[in-house]
């Protein structure tokens, strides 16, 4: 607002049209970045392939990442994070899921789900192991599953992601181990529609109540 004006918008009216538009565009950028708690606009993103995205959208809870969920009392975030592959052996692989500090620092996790696709060769129940690794790659939790046929399975990783959100650079590391004769537990490339992903739902932290004395 122009100095000395008595109304927030009065200053705008006094500007020349061109300057007025520039000022409003700058204000819009500043306002959106501030509300998203972003210091600056994210640099060029790496969008996932269409197949990967459609497959993930199809698997999620109905309505997630979609419009029209209605205003909630507290600002909510729904994050879809695709795996980044890490070190691997012939029948095991590590995955990393990164979360932005801006969201992590100011929100609390409501739920987080890991989606994995098992391309089960052969017949009958086969054991697979999913380990959630802590910051120094110690095993924080281990889950053994019996997989009977090719398909998706989900794992609740809410507690693991919640503990991450207290770190400087929140990163969830998952290790998959499958029987020797399967080969790698991961599809051959990132654009495969069976690529693993995590969906997390977070809500802005409640403002701490200030008690009047």
């Amino acid at each position, binding site marked *: 607002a122009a100095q000395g004006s008595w109304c927030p918008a009065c200053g705008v009216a006094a500007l020349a049209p061109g300057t007025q538009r520039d000022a409003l565009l700058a204000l819009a950028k500043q306002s959106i970045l501030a509300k998203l708690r972003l210091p600056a606009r994210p640099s060029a993103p790496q969008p996932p392939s269409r197949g990967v995205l459609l497959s993930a959208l199809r698997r999620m809870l109905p309505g997630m*990442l979609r419009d029209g969920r209605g205003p909630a009392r507290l600002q909510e*975030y729904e994050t879809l994070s695709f795996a980044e592959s890490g070190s691997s052996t012939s029948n095991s692989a590590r995955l990393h899921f990164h979360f932005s500090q801006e969201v992590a620092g100011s929100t609390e996790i409501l739920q987080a789900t890991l989606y994995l696709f098992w391309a089960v060769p052969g017949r009958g129940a086969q054991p697979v192991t999913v380990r959630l690794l802590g910051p120094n790659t110690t095993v924080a939790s281990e889950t053994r599953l019996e997989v009977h046929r090719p398909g998706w399975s989900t794992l609740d990783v809410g507690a693991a992601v919640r503990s991450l959100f207290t770190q400087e650079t929140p990163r969830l590391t998952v290790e998959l181990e499958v029987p020797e004769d399967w080969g790698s537990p991961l599809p051959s490339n990132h654009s495969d529609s069976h690529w693993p992903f995590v969906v997390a739902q977070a809500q802005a932290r409640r403002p701490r109540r200030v008690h009047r004395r």
Partner: protein
Amino acid sequence: GVDCGAGSPTCCRQEFFVDFKEIGWEDWIIQPEGYHMNYCSGLCPLHMAGVPGLAASFHTAVLNRIKAASAAAAVDSCCVPTQRRPLSLLYYDRDSNIVKTDIPDMIVDSCGCT
């Protein structure tokens, strides 16, 4: 609320649309294509104080009484939003995650005088 027409001097809602492509943000904001950053501008002369603005609020009722009793004691009335709604954004964060959020009270639907 009143939408601003050509040169209407009194409090109204001024429409203003920010096209994300125009400001080079279309690569990281997936949806929507732009932001309706409407704002309120215009004068609120004394006789319009509280119309339709925050007339429903207790404070405005009290202020009106003060004004009626003594114009000198009147305070300035400002043109402010009376109805707002969230801006729903789907965007890539710096880790190329896809994030959806609804930012409350970002789009002004109507304006009025306090």
